[in-house]
């Protein structure tokens, strides 16, 4: 269905020369890199004195040669551990950072030229930082935002009413931001960043720190907004559930490089050389050595779950059917957070332990 990303770029380039601009991807990133220079110092008293005289620097390659394209109306999920380069990439696309090398075009403009027409058409939400005025009711911050973006009065009213309805913000509009719960505040942040009707949305951790029900609601809203207005969205999140629920396509980044770019379903195939085989047994099989076939993920009564290398899946299945009284057998891809976690090396995977587990239980709820 979807062309692989490099192909899509190649086609886009051709389109620009021979065909109409309509087929051009909305976001086109080619070989984008960003390198920072950061001072470093060890802790302690002597090190403090030493650093007075001689500062040492370290090169940090936050993003190294990233290329991809995004079509209008797509929702793309960025996955990767902390410091993988997700936020840096988003910052370059929203014009906050100049790349060290490479090019990017968004909405036909170069983001870091920071044309105000461009800025008017995009929005960036940073879940970890608030752009609302702490001591004021949300409504006042919205008003300032409307003035800064020069949104006509009636259009502002109309959009605000719509967003307030969709986000169920009515009761909190007139409360001071500092009195709101984190979830309510996040909804206000989302509302303010959508007031000017952006065509492209960069959402950096839009659900961070919010409780599970609120996460689900924010997620529903984002999906709804995308369907209703056809906005193009790039989203990063610690929570797998955000990505699995919203994004058909994911881009996995680690250490500044793209590990995977494609359909969510294809992700496990590409990154996980495993299958999960689940069997229901007709009789007890005490003493049967499941461990010889693969990793035993779960074993209770007559249900067993095994993880086996992809290549061995067929032979293991055959053996199980032959040797055991199998009632039912399914072969599945491993859960996505497992895949990502393994791809980034063990449990340090997608995020802090408790966040991953929160995402899992979330998945269970659905």
């Amino acid at each position: 269905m979807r062309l692989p990303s490099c192909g899509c770029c190649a086609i886009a380039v051709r389109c620009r020369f021979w065909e109409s601009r309509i087929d051009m991807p909305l976001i086109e990133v080619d070989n984008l890199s960003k390198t920072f220079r950061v001072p470093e110092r060890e802790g302690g008293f002597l090190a403090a004195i030493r650093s007075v005289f001689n500062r040492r620097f370290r090169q940090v390659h936050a993003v190294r040669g990233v290329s991809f394209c995004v079509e209008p109306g797509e929702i793309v999920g960025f996955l990767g551990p902390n410091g993988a380069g997700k936020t840096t990439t988003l910052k370059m696309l929203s014009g906050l950072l100049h790349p060290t090398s490479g090019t990017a075009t968004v909405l036909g403009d170069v983001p870091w030229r920071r044309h105000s027409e461009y800025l008017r058409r995009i929005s960036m939400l940073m879940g970890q930082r608030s752009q609302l005025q702490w001591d004021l009711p949300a409504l006042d911050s919205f008003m300032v935002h409307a003035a800064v973006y020069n949104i006509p009065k009636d259009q502002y009213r109309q959009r605000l009413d719509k967003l307030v309805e969709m986000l169920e913000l009515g009761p909190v509009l007139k409360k001071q931001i500092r009195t709101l719960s984190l979830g309510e505040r996040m909804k206000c942040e989302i509302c303010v960043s959508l007031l000017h009707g952006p065509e492209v949305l960069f959402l950096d951790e839009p659900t961070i720190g919010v409780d599970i029900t609120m996460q689900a609601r924010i997620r529903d809203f984002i999906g709804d907004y995308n369907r209703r207005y056809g906005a193009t969205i790039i989203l990063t999140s610690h929570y797998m559930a955000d990505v699995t629920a919203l994004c058909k396509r994911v881009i996995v980044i680690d250490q500044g490089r793209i590990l995977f770019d494609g359909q969510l379903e294809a992700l496990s195939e590409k990154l996980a050389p495993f299958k999960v085989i689940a069997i229901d047994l007709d009789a007890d099989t005490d003493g049967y050595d499941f461990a010889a076939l693969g990793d035993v993920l779960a074993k209770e009564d007559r249900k067993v779950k095994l993880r086996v290398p992809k290549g061995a899946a067929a032979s293991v299945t055959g053996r199980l059917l032959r040797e055991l009284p199998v009632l039912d057998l399914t072969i599945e891809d491993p859960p996505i957070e497992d895949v990502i976690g393994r791809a980034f090396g063990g449990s340090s995977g997608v995020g802090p332990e408790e966040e991953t587990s929160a995402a899992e239980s979330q998945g269970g709820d659905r």
Partner: protein
Amino acid sequence: MTAVARSFFAFLRKGIAVMLQYRGEIVLWAIWGLVNPAVSYALWSAAAESNADGTIAGFGRGEFAAYFFAMMIVGHLTQAWDTYEIGHLVRSGEMSPKLLRPILPIWEALAGNLSYKITTLAFVVPMWCLFAWLVRPTFDTSAWQLGLGLIAIVLGAVLNFVLNYVFALVAFWTPKLDAMGELYFGACMLWGGRFAPLDALPDILRWLSGLQPFKWMFAFPSELIMGRITDPSEAFRGLGIQLAWIAVSIVGFRALWSVAVKRYTAVSG
């Protein structure tokens, strides 16, 4: 006692490390202590020069230079700023972990105070020399005056630190208000003799300044060092009064501290 001493030196080491880390900023804070006496010197020496005899209250240009040079040093070494600080600590909640420690927070504040003064010396001493070279103060100081003057600086520093801390405790009641810092600072300027030598004040103000402790933090050590106090008995009496005010301040701290902490735990607990 040894536990307190050990904690104190740990705080001091940490304080110095922090100050070195923020060396750029602490230098900026120290500059004010250089500019303010220099400006006062310029003002008063220009004013004295406008008078027929070229003096004000026995201060000629050279004496003003000596007075404000001494004040520059004394002001730096005896300063304290907790009236500005504690309100912030209470507001931001940083006070709570300090109260959990088995040592009074005042010791950490003292360590911070000392580490600032120690680390800034490398910057201010050359500046003091530069100022002295520019304004050529006329000193008339003998060894005993200098010796007692150094003791008076130490006592003045202790007095200012403790009294400032006592006033800072008001923050436990009205943490939002930074007014106490301003009030205390203004008192140091006027009654402490940092704005003008106390002898140059109108009589009524000079009399009022004698009733207050601020003079003993700044004016007294400065006048001793510049050699204006010529009578040893007067100098010793001054040291005695400094000690008395220190005692009063410590008693005030003891009395107020427990009330303040009770208040803090009642409100935020």
